[in-house]
């Protein structure tokens, strides 16, 4: 895409530390425009986190092979090192996590951590940095922000910690926010609050955001587009409406059909997808979903399908996409 803020091409990530190499990401292509939100949806082990962490180069260098290309705001991420890499992290792209304690240091106050992050990247006085920290806390709507800046992470409730982590991630005005299931561990009533906050900040600051989740309803709530991952590949991508109303990959269609929703008519059972997700160290050749797919034919097992255009800006890696019944 021209003028894309994030562009990932042919990303392949292989972990070589174990007995057998594990290919966690196998040919991911993804481009985000400025200010755009894409949800990366998939079940456990499908490669969502590995994809995100690649963009910040957070994998252990000695045990990871990364192939392909990643560009953020014109920067060739895979060639960065030293100073340039630390400058990139936080200032161009930054990340928030499911578990805020991964981002927050338990032995420093929240205020000190934000001030430190600002001073690391910018030529401002400690005083200016502190004033900005306060504005950030107000922005993420932490009550009594002045007092909370002097709190330690463990003194906050779950939802407040999540807000503090978001403030820290935004401290140096990044253009790209990488969100790895930031609401998964939260209770329903708190999850909505954080989703609304993220959506608002994203719009206001014009952030591009990759939002990783395994929950379709969360993806629908935050994203412009949804990219569905299965066994290390994006198997379907398109505008939220198109993906959830006319899914074209049998896996996506299956996920939508098997959701429990509404009351149960007596005697009725849920539709199911048979089997379980594959072992990445022992992937079948061809389409990784073929062993579970009702539409699979020999050609599916022979070679991994390339993305097929199934609508405007909507592609699915399935050679049988046109056989899927159109939902009512």
């Amino acid at each position: 895409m021209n003028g894309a803020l994030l562009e990932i091409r042919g990303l392949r990530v292989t972990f070589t530390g174990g007995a057998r190499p594990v290919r966690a990401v196998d040919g991911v292509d993804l481009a985000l425009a400025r200010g755009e939100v894409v949800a990366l949806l998939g079940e456990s082990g499908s490669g969502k986190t590995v994809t995100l962490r690649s963009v910040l180069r957070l994998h252990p260098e000695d045990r990871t092979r990364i192939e392909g290309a990643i560009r953020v705001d014109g920067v060739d991420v895979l060639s960065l090192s030293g100073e340039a890499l630390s400058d990139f992290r936080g200032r161009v792209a930054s990340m928030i996590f499911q578990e805020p304690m991964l981002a927050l240091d338990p032995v420093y106050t929240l205020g000190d951590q934000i001030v430190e992050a600002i001073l690391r990247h910018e030529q401002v006085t400690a005083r200016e940095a502190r004033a900005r920290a306060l504005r950030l806390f107000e922005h993420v709507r932490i009550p009594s922000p002045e007092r909370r800046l002097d709190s330690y992470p463990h003194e906050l409730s779950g939802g407040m910690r999540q807000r503090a982590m978001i403030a820290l991630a935004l401290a140096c005005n990044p253009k790209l926010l990488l969100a790895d299931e930031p609401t998964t561990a939260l209770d329903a009533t708190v999850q909505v609050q954080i989703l609304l906050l993220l959506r608002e900040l994203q719009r206001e600051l014009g952030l591009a955001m990759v939002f990783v989740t395994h929950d379709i309803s969360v993806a629908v709530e935050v994203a412009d587009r949804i990219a569905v991952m299965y066994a290390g590949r994006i198997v379907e991508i398109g505008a939220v409406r198109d993906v959830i109303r006319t899914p074209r990959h049998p896996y996506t269609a299956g996920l939508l059909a098997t959701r429990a929703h509404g009351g149960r008519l007596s005697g009725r059972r849920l539709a199911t997808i048979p089997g379980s997700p594959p072992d990445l160290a022992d992937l079948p050749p061809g389409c990784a979903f073929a062993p579970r797919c009702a539409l699979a034919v020999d050609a599916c097992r022979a070679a991994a399908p390339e993305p097929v255009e199934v609508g405007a800006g909507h592609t699915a890696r399935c050679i049988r996409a046109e056989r899927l019944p159109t939902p009512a």
Partner: protein
Amino acid sequence: MSAPLLEVRGLVKTFPARRDLFGRATSVVSAVDGVDFDLYEGETLGVVGESGCGKSTTARLLLHLLDATAGTIRFEGRTVGSRELPWKAFRRQVQIVFQDSYASLNPRLTVAESVAFGPRVHGVPRAEAEARAHELLARVGLEPARFAGRFPHELSGGQRQRVNIARALALQPRVLVLDEPVSALDKSVEAQVLNLLLDLKDAFRLTYLFISHDLEVVRYMSDRVLVMYLGRVAEIGPTEEIYRASRHPYTTALLASMLSMDPDRRTEAAPISGDPPNPIDPPPGCRFHTRCAFAEDVCARRAPAPTAIAPGHAVACHMSVAGSGHSRAPARAA
């Protein structure tokens, strides 16, 4: 309605939170505080509420995996833990399946051995226990020829949960307590396990206490729903009545927090703000009053008693208690 199979009254559990130099508790976690409910034969009672509200503690108290601080449980009219129904006899009737399918299986036992273990302990001869284990594995969708000899680490999460279900059924219980049984499973596997639970319930005429934080799943599975907030029952009633016409402000806010799955109807405002308070020193009076849009003076002063508002539907909110002093309460009946 017939007499309940299980009656829980005044169930209380506190845990020591901090201790002084001498090991004496100086403050306590009020995990479960005066929980009452009935469970009827053949029904599924769903239990929902946010993390830490006491769902798992309630489950563990039922199974006597924890000692209750106070409260009674009656099974078919007999008091559990008394001479008329000792815990051991009761435990054969009630089994549990946990969220963490791995931690709940002994890693050194094969799948068939795990399923046969309970009956063996209860004196069933080996050959008979094993034959029954194979039958049960087949029943939960694990072909014995392929799976009986496997160890837990050789199974997927969904398969392990099937083993846990088979194991829970091995003693032919009448009640299954399911504590987040599908929460750790992949979405593509969840429906398989939910269907299995529905099938088994019909086949073995079971009664379920189904705990989950997933409001869609609870709605789908349950005949009645119990909503907990900070250790207490906020509301209990028939599923569709709860989902369509809840009367407790917490239930309403919780259900309104469900996401729509419709990009044209996204949530515009959060139904309530803040996090649930800490169960150490919970708020006095109604425990929800710190987050409730309808709270008045009385709410901070007195805890509302569960009050029937329709047959089988009870609400613990001053707005539903006649003459409570809340401005929205109905007038006291003459």
